[in-house]
């Protein structure tokens, strides 16, 4: 069976880049609990990225690390939502976290029914792990619900959140977060946040090409 490599790489790139962004709270989150939480969430997201990369890598005859670190920034397929640096703004971070986790659940639910058994199996495992991310996101969204900074951030990020999903899945997201459909900011163009992130993320690997760490 031939796999939809583009779809797998979108998922993997989203998880890797958001995992990286989440990890930027390590050491500086507003509470110690959140320092631990965001670090742990980052670790799991990057673990999910690795698992999706491995599936894609089998088809492409390469390995997960090459897909994660050896491409040029323009070759990444992640959505603009995950690229933005937010480690100085808790309300925006929580708004993105909540929108992302809600949207992510929708696409994982679709993959659970995939005819490709490996994809469906992985989606099932990831879905159970993600349950903890969703609980965390919902707890915070509930807590910040009436904060103007949070509401503004949700409105600002809403077009980006829509762009995370294929068009057919967007109505489910509108329903889940009780927002109206609108213009989406689609994948394709990267934001200016991606290049500096990429430079930092791939720095060690680029320093000694081909080394085994």
């Amino acid at each position, binding site marked *: 069976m031939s796999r939809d490599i583009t779809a797998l790489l979108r998922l993997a790139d989203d998880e890797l880049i958001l995992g990286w962004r989440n990890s930027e709270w390590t050491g500086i989150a507003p509470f110690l*609990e959140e320092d631990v939480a965001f670090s742990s969430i980052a670790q799991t997201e990057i*673990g999910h990225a690795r698992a999706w990369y491995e599936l894609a890598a089998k088809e492409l005859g390469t390995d997960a690390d090459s897909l994660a670190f050896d491409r040029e920034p323009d070759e990444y397929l992640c959505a603009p939502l995950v690229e933005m640096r937010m480690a100085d703004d808790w309300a925006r971070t929580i708004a993105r976290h909540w929108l992302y986790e809600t949207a992510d659940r929708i696409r994982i639910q679709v993959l659970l029914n995939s005819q490709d058994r490996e994809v469906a199996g992985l989606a099932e495992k990831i879905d159970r*792990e993600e349950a903890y991310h969703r*609980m965390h996101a919902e707890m915070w969204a509930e807590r910040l619900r009436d904060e103007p900074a949070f509401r503004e951030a949700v409105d600002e990020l809403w077009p980006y959140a829509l762009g995370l999903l294929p068009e057919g899945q967007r109505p489910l997201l509108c329903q889940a977060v009780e927002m109206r459909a609108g213009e989406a900011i689609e994948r394709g163009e990267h934001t200016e946040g991606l290049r500096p992130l990429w430079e930092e993320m791939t720095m060690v690997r680029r320093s000694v090409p081909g080394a085994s760490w």
Partner: protein
Amino acid sequence: MVTAERVWEALAEIPDPEIPVVSLVDLGVVRDVEVDGERVYVGFTPTFLGCPALEVMRDQMAERIRELGAEPDVEVLSEGWSSDWITEEGRRKLRDSGFAPPSGHSPATLLQIQTNTHACPYCGSTDTRLDNLFGPTPCRSIRYCNACRQPFEQFKTL
């Protein structure tokens, strides 16, 4: 001649890299052992996909199998690990070292995690509360016992 039984025994001696009080077999991450002459196949599934101990576990299993004089073939399965697979022995060892074993069924909501009965591994009281969904490794949460005033680590139910 290597037997499957001998392989299981050998794998049961490998401590979990992050919670060494339990073995890989106690944790239920070893799913399948098949012996075909000199070749030993092991199917295993890590607790969490982001588990940094994955490679360590894989290498240690391969090493033990080589020590038995066989050629290892260790495969990471796509099937998801469940905390239900931690053995009774594993649960006892966890409790004895201050880790609360996972509760019976996967929580769907935060409310369930907050209200499900979670016993303190130190005093046994169920008057405990959730402190943090996340802990030092992806597989653990932090709870606090109101009775003996002791924070403790709770294995996540997965």
